């Protein structure tokens, strides 16, 4: 679903069409989960935050500006809620997602049960920013340009982070496992 179509459903929901919310939810839940998980690196916390994000979206739908980027709006809400959650847990967390690596950043909330499946590897080893880009691009199918818009980062930064992330994964997974 492209930006315009999502905006159309947002307008419908804003006007009181509850069924539009179901469509919005289905279309965005993967992206939101990927986004939040990348930051907090904890499945349970990510689930809570995603849930809170949708509740917040429902409550704040009146302030959504038709014609704007719905996903960027949702991501902003999600980001704020994630940071609130992390702060609530009295963790010292840098808000500069691009600078911190996964190891430096995520140890405060990182799920101790993260295993060796590929998602765990991505979440555990990449910085929040890198993990976001990898998941949004490879799992959710967003183009780099769209990710740049959603995350409010320059396209060049997104491309550069993506390449860095793949290089890291290549090293971690070894020659046999590397993504080519």
């Amino acid at each position: 679903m492209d930006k315009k179509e999502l905006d159309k459903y947002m307008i419908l929901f804003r006007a009181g069409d509850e069924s539009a919310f179901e469509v919005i939810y289905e279309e965005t839940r993967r992206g939101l989960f990927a986004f939040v998980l990348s930051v907090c690196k904890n499945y349970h916390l990510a689930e809570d935050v995603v849930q809170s994000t949708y509740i917040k979206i429902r409550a704040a739908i009146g302030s959504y500006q038709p014609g704007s980027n719905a996903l960027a709006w949702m991501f902003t809400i999600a980001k704020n809620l994630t940071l609130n959650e992390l702060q609530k847990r009295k963790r010292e967390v840098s808000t500069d997602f691009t600078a911190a690596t996964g190891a430096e950043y995520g140890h405060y909330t990182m799920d101790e049960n993260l295993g060796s499946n590929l998602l765990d590897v991505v979440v555990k080893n990449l910085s929040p920013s890198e993990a976001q880009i990898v998941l949004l691009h490879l799992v959710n199918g967003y183009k780099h340009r769209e990710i740049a818009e959603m995350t409010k980062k320059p396209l060049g930064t997104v491309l550069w982070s993506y390449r860095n992330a793949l290089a890291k994964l290549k090293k971690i997974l070894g020659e046999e496992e590397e993504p080519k």
Partner: protein
Amino acid sequence: MNMNDFKERLAQDFEERLPDVYSKVKNTPYYPVSPAEERKAYNESSGRRNLKMAFLSCLVIVVVLASVLPVILFNDSRATVSESAFMEVVVEEYVASSTASTSGGETSEKPEINLIVFEGIITGYNANTSGNYLLTGETVKGLTVKKGLEKIASLTAELGYVGTGDGVNGLHIAVAGQNADIADTTKQLAKVAATDYFASNNVRAVVTTGDLEKSKLVEKAKQFDASANSSMTVAELNEIIENGKTFISSEVAAAYNSDSCVKSMKQIYIKKMFSMLSGITAQFVDTTYGGDRAYAEERVNALLSAYLTAVGKGGVTLGEKSVGTDVLTPWDVVENIDEVLATVDSAYLPVGGKITRDEKTAVAEFAASFKNALLDASRGYSDKVETSGSFIVSAFRFTTFDFVTHLENMVKDCKGFDDLYDYVHTEFDSIMDSFDKYSATENKLTAKGADAYLVGLESLVAKTNTVEKENAKLSLAATRQTEKGDEVVWASKDEYKAWASTITGE
């Protein structure tokens, strides 16, 4: 593992971990926007898009202009008039037609128009009734002298003023310039443009030029400002005429059916002022209290109550005055709102708890905006009075005093923040909706045609018609005559300003 396999496995892991929270959130409340608000929001959004497009268009135009301007300037350094000039364009009959238009003893009026020039044509207006046909509205405003004269020449031909019959007609262009060079440049630009148009369109017409006596320009300026004189420059005289032309619209409009229009005008001013105040209040409630008007009201009342309690205990000062013992001026509380808020800083309000720093800032800003809005309203009105001196005051006499009295009473009433708030809240019970109400009232008035001010203004702003202007001037003179006994005139502008300042409290 290749990229496709990696992607597939990652997606599979992701789907396994992806939570489904829909059932948990679907029953939480949400706050849909009504269809009416939805449409409004959409229109606003559309407006922003239009604005964006307009901005982009302007940007493109600027870029294009920047690239072609040097070429234009290089090729035609005399294409613009760099200083002020005043131009009179008259259709003249040079060789009488055998079927003369003077048959029956009536002479056809020669269309005459005036143009104020600075680089391009700043504005143009008809100097007589027939001129109206050559210059309806502002058709030449913003054009270069060349384009403007081409347009005027084409109209004279289209309307049959030139190039028809067996006589020879044409245009006479008389110019008064800021200096001789400017006058010459303007004349040449105009003459070449009109001559070229006639020649290339096979219109039999001649174009002559001459100097416009400065005394004639002074005479025109005196219509709008009695102090205009020959020692003024062409630019200064042009400014008087241009301002006078701009102002004459509302002046003329007010002169129609003076009784009803003056009343309407008063209402409009007051409504406009309160729509402005309501906007400020609504914004304050929206930003500070999330649009919760009931809570905002309770909160502000609690704040006032705490303040009044503090005042009741004595020792509260505002600026250098003691509250309760000294006489306060209308703006004492508003100007010292920080002190008011400091007084209740430690008070625990029964509604919503202790006042927050953000709330204090918002209240202070609200009070300041409120004051500025009132002062702007009175200042704006004073400017109008001042622009035309006693001439306008006499025409707007009732408006002036009714309006100022209303304002004065309001300001006098507002001896405290509570008064200020109550004034808005109680006297205008639906202050929050007054934008809509104001619009509805305005539409209603316009639709009924009952509002002479609006109807007159709209019609006169759209076109500059000499006949209407003359009629209006007569009406205005009659108004002055009938109200002469009550006319209020100040000896000087300073005297007027001093009077105004006592009203506004400045």
